[in-house]
């Protein structure tokens, strides 16, 4: 009798315990956020997509890292023993480029999100084994951006075929306006103009056959250029350079140098995207329209397109069912109509997804027939084709190569391409520093900024955000690998500032503005300083308040003067659609010079490392407190 009672009592206690344990477990599970790291091919994704994702998935702890627009970057991560981040993106894509990553990526062919695509578009990304690991974002149109106002002003009709295009250039030349210009220095400009001028050939039966063959090549069986299509491509490019009145020296033109004349009405047409055309139209009041790459007749006109970016998922995600489900939901969100708008800013011409209806923007009004007749060419965009196009293109521009020589050189390189920056070991790094963001910031970012600060003998350096795109590893570094430490498209300035001005700089970079603009909506966007430490309080998730600033443990002297190195991208912070936090004008004015005119941040890095031959020790440059 007693034994029965005892057993009943024990069972009751066990049930209660299980009940409470279950409740406790549920509560714990709810509080445990799933962490997802997403590497962004470009800073522009921080503009709309990432805040939108954080809003859509408040229960997911995102880490967004600005990475590079090349598969080589991810290959290097693997070579360093890292795992592929949960979600990666890259705009420059070809199947053969992506092949070495395949075994680290999920096959998405059976996923729900893949089902939202028009199957014919996904076929391009299908591996021979049937797997589909990369999903394309909506298409960007990158063709000829024309200042319609200028055409109208001079009574020049918008061209409808190649002959008219050349005639328009000539007509503008007559009135002292550059008919067509572009930032020839960039590899993508070379690649796109080279392919753009011969799209009918590249889209011919032989052209598409060759491309399929090339994109299926393996490391052991490299595919050279086709001898039917490609000689024509180089011949047409040679003619194109002549027709656009290319001048020696233009090959060094960069974005700003190209766009300034365009904005000022000195250039009628440039190579650029529909997105930019819309942007210029709305921001500068210049009526910009997109024109196609012209063929002999209007039926031969083609638009050069490429996906905004391609997205893949690490197969490590599959190990955690909850995480996998979360990632699948994120993908569904990204590829939804709303998600793609966040990426494309409403300027896309074509959606690859059945359920997404993106209306072509006004800038595309003159290429509607191309769109309707499906004359949409997707650029061939492997890493080597970018690099070789730049090399061969520049040599054609400088007259070193004629069409045949260009063909030969291109053909020779494409079967045995080696990035010169990725061959020679530049230095051997002794200590490794993680890029994981802690309450004292990122060690890798600190080491990077400390290196820049020391190399250029500045007292203080401030990077607008953690400009490190990867951890720093112990071991050999080539120049290319070293360049991947610092995020792309930063500017570097120097100036002399008082302690009070330094404080205002930090205030600009950290504090939420009166109108609600928030430069740091995520803690891993916290500025990185060298020669100076600071403390912030996170008083609300994603909102920070600058507290104390010290130098060598002493309070910043407001009256003292310091040489200050500034690293970052103004536009990102200042742009209305990004952070909308303009730099105080007086501070901007005092910002004396680009470190070197047209000296890119990457080149700056190279110069610094040539001096230090090492990424220097990191410091605890920031302390993040939680509070109110």
């Amino acid at each position: 009798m007693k034994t029965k009672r005892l057993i009943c009592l024990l069972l009751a206690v066990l049930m209660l315990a299980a009940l409470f344990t279950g409740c406790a477990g549920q509560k714990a599970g709810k509080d445990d956020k799933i962490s997802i790291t997403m590497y962004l091919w470009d800073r522009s994704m921080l503009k709309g997509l990432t805040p939108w994702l954080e809003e859509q998935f408040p229960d997911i702890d995102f880490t967004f890292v600005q990475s590079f627009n090349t598969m080589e970057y991810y290959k290097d991560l693997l070579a360093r023993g890292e795992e592929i981040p949960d979600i990666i993106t890259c705009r420059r894509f070809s199947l053969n480029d992506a092949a070495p990553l395949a075994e680290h990526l999920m096959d998405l062919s059976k996923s729900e999100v893949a089902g939202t695509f028009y199957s014919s578009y996904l076929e391009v990304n299908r591996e021979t084994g049937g797997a589909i690991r990369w999903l394309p974002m909506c298409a960007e149109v990158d063709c000829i951006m024309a200042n319609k106002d200028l055409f109208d002003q001079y009574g020049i009709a918008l061209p409808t075929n190649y002959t008219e295009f050349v005639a328009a250039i000539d007509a503008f030349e007559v009135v002292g306006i550059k008919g067509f210009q572009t930032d020839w220095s960039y590899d993508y400009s070379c690649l796109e103009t080279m392919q753009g001028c011969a799209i009918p050939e590249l889209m011919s039966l032989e052209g598409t056959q060759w491309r399929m063959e090339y994109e299926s090549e393996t490391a052991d069986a490299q595919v050279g250029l086709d001898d039917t299509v490609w000689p024509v491509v180089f011949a047409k490019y040679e003619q194109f350079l002549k027709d656009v009145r290319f001048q020696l020296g233009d090959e060094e033109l960069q974005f700003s140098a190209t766009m300034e004349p365009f904005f000022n009405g000195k250039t009628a047409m440039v190579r650029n995207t529909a997105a930019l055309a819309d942007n210029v139209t709305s921001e500068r009041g210049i009526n910009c329209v997109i024109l196609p790459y012209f063929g002999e007749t209007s039926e031969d006109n083609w638009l050069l397109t490429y996906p905004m970016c391609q997205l893949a998922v690490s197969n490590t995600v599959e190990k955690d069912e909850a995480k996998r489900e979360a990632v699948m939901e994120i993908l569904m969100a990204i590829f939804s109509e709303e998600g793609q708008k966040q990426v494309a800013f409403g300027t896309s011409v074509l959606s690859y997804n059945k359920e997404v209806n993106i209306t072509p923007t006004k800038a595309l009004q003159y290429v509607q027939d191309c769109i309707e007749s499906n004359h949409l060419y997707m650029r061939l965009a492997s890493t080597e084709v970018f690099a070789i196009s730049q090399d061969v293109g520049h040599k054609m521009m400088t007259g070193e190569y004629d069409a045949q020589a260009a063909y030969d050189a291109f053909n020779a390189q494409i079967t045995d391409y080696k990035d010169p920056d990725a061959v020679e070991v530049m230095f051997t790094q002794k200590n490794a520093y993680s890029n994981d963001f802690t309450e004292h910031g990122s060690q890798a970012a600190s080491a990077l900024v400390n290196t820049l600060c020391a190399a250029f003998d500045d007292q203080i350096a401030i990077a607008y955000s953690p400009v490190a795109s990867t951890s720093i590893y112990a071991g050999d570094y080539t120049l290319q690998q070293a360049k991947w430490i610092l995020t792309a498209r930063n500017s570097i300035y120097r100036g002399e500032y008082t302690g009070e001005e330094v404080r205002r700089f930090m205030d600009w970079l950290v504090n939420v503005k009166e109108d609600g603009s928030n430069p740091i909506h995520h803690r891993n966007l916290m500025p990185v300083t060298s020669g100076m430490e600071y403390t912030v309080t996170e008083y609300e998730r994603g909102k920070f308040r600058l507290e104390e600033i010290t130098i060598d443990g002493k309070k910043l002297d407001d009256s003292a003067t310091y040489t200050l190195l500034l690293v970052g991208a103004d536009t990102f912070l200042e742009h209305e659609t990004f952070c909308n936090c303009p730099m105080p004008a007086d501070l901007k004015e005092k910002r004396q010079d680009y470190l070197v005119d047209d000296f890119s941040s990457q080149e700056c890095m190279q110069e610094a490392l040539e001096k230090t031959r090492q990424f220097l020790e990191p410091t605890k440059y920031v302390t993040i407190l939680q509070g109110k």
Partner: protein
Amino acid sequence: MKKRLVILLLALVLTAGVVWAGSAYFGFVSQTIYEESTAHLTEIFHQANQTLYNLVSVNWSRMRMWEPYLSKTENDDEITTYVNHAREESHFTDFYFISRDGNYLTLEGQQGYLDLREKLPALILDQQPIVVNSVVPDQPKIMVFAIPAAKGNYRGFEYEAIAITFNNSDMVDALKISAFNGQASTFAVLPDGRVVVDNGSQDMNDMRNFFAMLEKSESLTEKELADLEEAFGTGKSGNLVFEKDGRDYYLIYEPANFQDWIVLGIVPTYVVNASMNKLQSTTIIVVSGIAIALAMTILLLVVQQNRQKLKRKDNELLARDELFSKLSINVDDVFLMVDARNLRVEYVSPNIEKLVGISEERVLRDVHEIEHLIRPNESELILDQLSTILPGEQREWDREYIHQKTGEELWFRVVVFCTDIQGEKKYILDLSDRTKDKKINQRLEDAVHTAENANRAKTTFLNNMSHDIRTPMNAIIGFTNIAMKHDPKPEVKNCLRKISESSDHLLTLINDVLDISRIESGKIKFIPSPVDITEVADTAMSITQGFLSNRNVEFHANLAVPAHPYVLADAVRIREVLVNILGNAVKFTEDGGSITFEASYAPGADDRHITVCYRVTDTGIGMNEEFVQHIFDEFSQEENDARTQYKGTGLGMAITRRYVDLMGGTISVESKKGEGSAFTVELPLELTEESKVQKRSCHAAEVDLSGIKILLAEDNDLNAEIAIVQLEELGTQVTRTSDGDETVETFAKNPPDTFAIIFMDIMMPKMNGYEATEAIRTMQSRPDARRIPIIAMTANAFAEDVQASLDAGMNGHLSKPIVMDEVIKAIARNARQ
């Protein structure tokens, strides 16, 4: 408890059986429905698939028919008319002329690029017909059917292939299923599950990838999903059931026979199985109803039965209670039930006051009240012992109580049972009044004691009589024999002979009277020992022949010899039986008559026993029938002049009968007056081994005893004299002692081995024969003390006397009157050792 457990187990087994049977039935029905439904669905969807295939193949066929006309016709308008006519027939959406590079021109003159991907080389270069899903911006999804064509020109557009397109919605029509009220979905999917043709019902409108949908619904295991993926990849057909949003669906899949498409048919199971489900659910409801009704009936029956059982039990309990109450009032037992934990009295029978003089209430208040019943100095208190009694055990005590009111002395038997009643330990005390029994027992014990005393007196009397008669008889017979040996005068000799005969008769009388008395008092025991059974008959025959020495009676002996004559038998008693019967035969057969003595052997009850049958027939005077009835009665003699003629006690046949009974045998008699009698004795005997049988000792006449020194202990001078005379006649040297002391002393005085044997009287003054024997045997200084033969020679003639002699350490026993042959044998056997 055990029965309940069995019933519970049976109920469980029955329930499990019913559940199993129900489940098996349900499973069987479900499986049957599934098989029927999927077979039905497969047929339906196969037709849809076939329609789709027909659509494709018909289109190719039609285009092949059109192509020669198109290539031959140069007039564009005629071509336009022809194609428009064809469109009316075939219902395609658009007609395309396709160039080598994949550009197209429609009939209406629209140009564009048709993205045929890797199919373009197949179409143009390999001249293969193709079907491909393609996209033209701002157009619905289209399915392109293209065939290679001879190079042609339409409105200046050079083409190498022609194609017709269908909007996917047209393909959907082919896959449409009219059945199932629009709840059937059909899809054409790629092997990786991506949907190519979507004819999904409302339930399935969110399906983007079939596998992703299945994975999300989590209705299939990983293995099932992998198997399905493999089936799609390898173009296999099949069916299964999956669940989505809490609803089950049938899935039928089979390859589309073109491209690598798989055609899927999906219908909610409840739609397909509607009628079957109704039937099944009705069946289940009916069966369940019947089962429930049955179960309820059984339950009600069981409840009713239990109620009746409980009622019966209640009645029984009430009856028992009543019975117990009445009993407990009227019986001489007081019952108490005591809780083992606290010795609280839970029940005490109401007769306690009557039986022991303590009120029921007092005992109910405190059980220790019952301890006041015993005498103050009584050894152990029963209540103190209770804790040592375990459940299932009982213990008893006899107690003398004092009635608390009358002061009467009582005898009680207290029995305590320890029992476990539903986990609680109880003591049940039964105080049983045995005062009456005790008194009756005491009276009985007194009576027994008296009887035993009487018996002892009788035995003593018999012993004394036997001893005291035999002692003078020994002298009379002894001296008569001695006198006869001194060659008396004929008159004296005649007198001596008559004295001898009278003495023998007297001795026989004495022996018979003593024997019958001893038999009645149970003193006579049947003592079997290993013997050769043939010797018993031989001896009896020899004795009988002695009786016949001066008679003219013909004696025939027919003594069989068994294969194995060694048995366990009391040879003395058998011989006595035979000698009695044979003696009577001699006695009652007149001269000129005949006596026949037969011995035969038959197998016994088993192979360890035999039955010996002795038959004595004579031609004597015989007996009348009435006497034959009483022949075995004591003192029975036929009322005629035979008694005067034939001397006897009338005890012989009674003793014979008693001996035969003692030995487990039977005796019968057949007789006819004036013709003779026949006595038959049958005795069962156990066989024994030959080695255990003592061989017959030698004959006394053959023994030379001269020179042997004998120490004779005899207090009676006459008996001593007789013995000395007779022993010395044998050549022995006799030293006489008159009591035990003297005997021991004489033995001690003489050197060792002086005497070859000692004849020891028992009843002697100072020290009797037993004590003297013990004294001699325990002499440490004499090496011959333990080995010298000591033979009892006494008037104590009974078997227990023989045993007493042997127990005292003697080697043998001779009873008086002494028979010299026995004396000689005793000397020869023992002195020789």
